[in-house]
């Protein structure tokens, strides 16, 4: 589903963020991208939804060259990707329900259908009582669940989550991870950028490790690897 071919990314003036990254990710995989701050985790995710463009190399998503898309193509690409951020990025003026429905409405889903979908997702995530609450009235965990509902509302094939548990306590982080695993059961590919080793050890099935922009390791089972050490 995702293929990186010798991808480089440099930021001006000439700072390398990613160097010669080549990897493949299959549909339905649950992948952690890990590494210390500045390792290139966020950049790697951004390249996938064209938040950034690679300096060199090729990225294919479902066989489509991401770098060659025009603005319409980028918009279409993003409709198939659900994004989750560390700081949630919910719009404070809108209620939880409106935040989720907006993501569907902007791609042309009728208003009624958008709100029905948003409501069902919030109910599934245990937030039916919070539909009318504004983000600031919600706890960190609740806000992240709203953000996850928003990422799911367009039935994406890929979810990219950048440090989704960075602002959450351990218990809520666990709940969020279980939620991602549940989503994955429907065949959705999930890529999570995180440096939370404990979470990765508990939930990681595949871990891509970056160090200073280089691909340092690509491990299939962290628990097993760790236990062998």
């Amino acid at each position: 589903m995702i293929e990186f071919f010798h991808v480089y990314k440099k930021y001006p003036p000439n700072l390398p963020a990613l160097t010669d990254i080549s990897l493949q990710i299959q549909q339905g995989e649950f992948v952690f991208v890990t590494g210390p701050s500045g390792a290139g985790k966020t950049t790697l995710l951004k390249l996938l939804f064209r938040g950034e463009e690679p300096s060199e190399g090729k990225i294919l998503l479902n066989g489509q060259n991401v770098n060659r898309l025009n603005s319409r193509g980028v918009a279409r690409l993003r409709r198939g990707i659900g994004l989750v951020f560390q700081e949630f990025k919910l719009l404070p003026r809108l209620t939880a329900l409106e935040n989720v429905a907006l993501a569907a409405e902007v791609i042309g889903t009728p208003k009624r259908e958008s709100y029905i979908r948003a409501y069902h997702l919030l109910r599934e995530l245990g937030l039916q009582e919070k539909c009318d609450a504004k983000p600031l009235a919600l706890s960190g965990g609740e806000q992240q669940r709203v953000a996850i509902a928003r990422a799911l509302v367009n039935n994406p094939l890929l979810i990219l989550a950048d440090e989704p548990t960075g602002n959450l306590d351990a218990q809520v982080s666990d709940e969020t991870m279980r939620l991602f695993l549940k989503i994955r059961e429907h065949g959705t590919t999930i890529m999570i950028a995180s440096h939370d080793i404990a979470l990765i050890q508990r939930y990681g099935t595949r871990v891509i490790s970056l160090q200073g922009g280089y691909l340092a390791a690509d491990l299939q089972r962290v628990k097993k690897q760790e236990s062998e050490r």
Partner: protein
Amino acid sequence: MWSRLSFVGRRAWNNLRELFWTHFLAAIAMTMTLFVFGAFILLQENLQNLLKGWGDQIQINAYLDKSAGVAEVQNLLNRIRSLPEVQQVRFISSAQAWNEFQAALGAQSGILEGLPKDVLPSSFEIAIKPSFRDSPMVEDLASRLKKERGIALVEYPQEWVDRLSLVVLAVQWAKWILGGALFLVTFFIVGSTIKLAILARKDEIEMMQLFGASEEMIQAPFVIEGVTQGIVGGLLSILCLWFLFQSLRDVIPSGVGLVGPLTHFEFLDLRSAGLILVIGLTLGAAGSLFSLKRFIKTWRG
């Protein structure tokens, strides 16, 4: 399609509501610009009507010697009627001229009080056939009439027509030069309000881009906001011009003696009103698009 239109419409409406005063002030600026431009159109159109009226009924006024007797006047009338250029001749007696002048001054006719009623001379109003209405031909006829015995003074409006044509031309140029400068200012004012609207929606726009909204879905509401400012500004300016027109029409006398009755004043016709609206609409749309291009970051294809 309908859901997209409905979404764009709702967003535009919400933006207009939330930044009401900003949009309102921009619409007022638009109103002032279009008002000035419209006032020039109004002036130009009425001057052109006046010119056309004069052109249609071009005539020579030949004022008679007070000493001319009835027989002499009749003789002169017959001679003038027989001239090939002359379409029609109307004799206006001194008393008739006084009455017509008084009627033309209307409410201001009081200024004539104290003057003897025979102060105005008798005259001939000589209408010229259309084929002889060229400036040199009229001049030639006027000079021949001047030589006739019994005629004291000959006047014809051709030089007034020429002078007024110059004034119309000046008004036309002023309209576009001053209007153009004001359009430019208004364009930037609209652009600034849309910039404010964009900045107020910065996070929302970023999220919409990340969800996969098309550029049209993101930008259309802002264009609608600009266009709304333009239409509101256009309509308000036409309304203000209407009030200005009504108040001035009652003040300006409808005729002056020398050049005959003026054509009645007319408000903007549909074409001119439409032009004002289209300019407002275009300025609004262009100002919005200018700001969108500058302040919305887009990905490159």
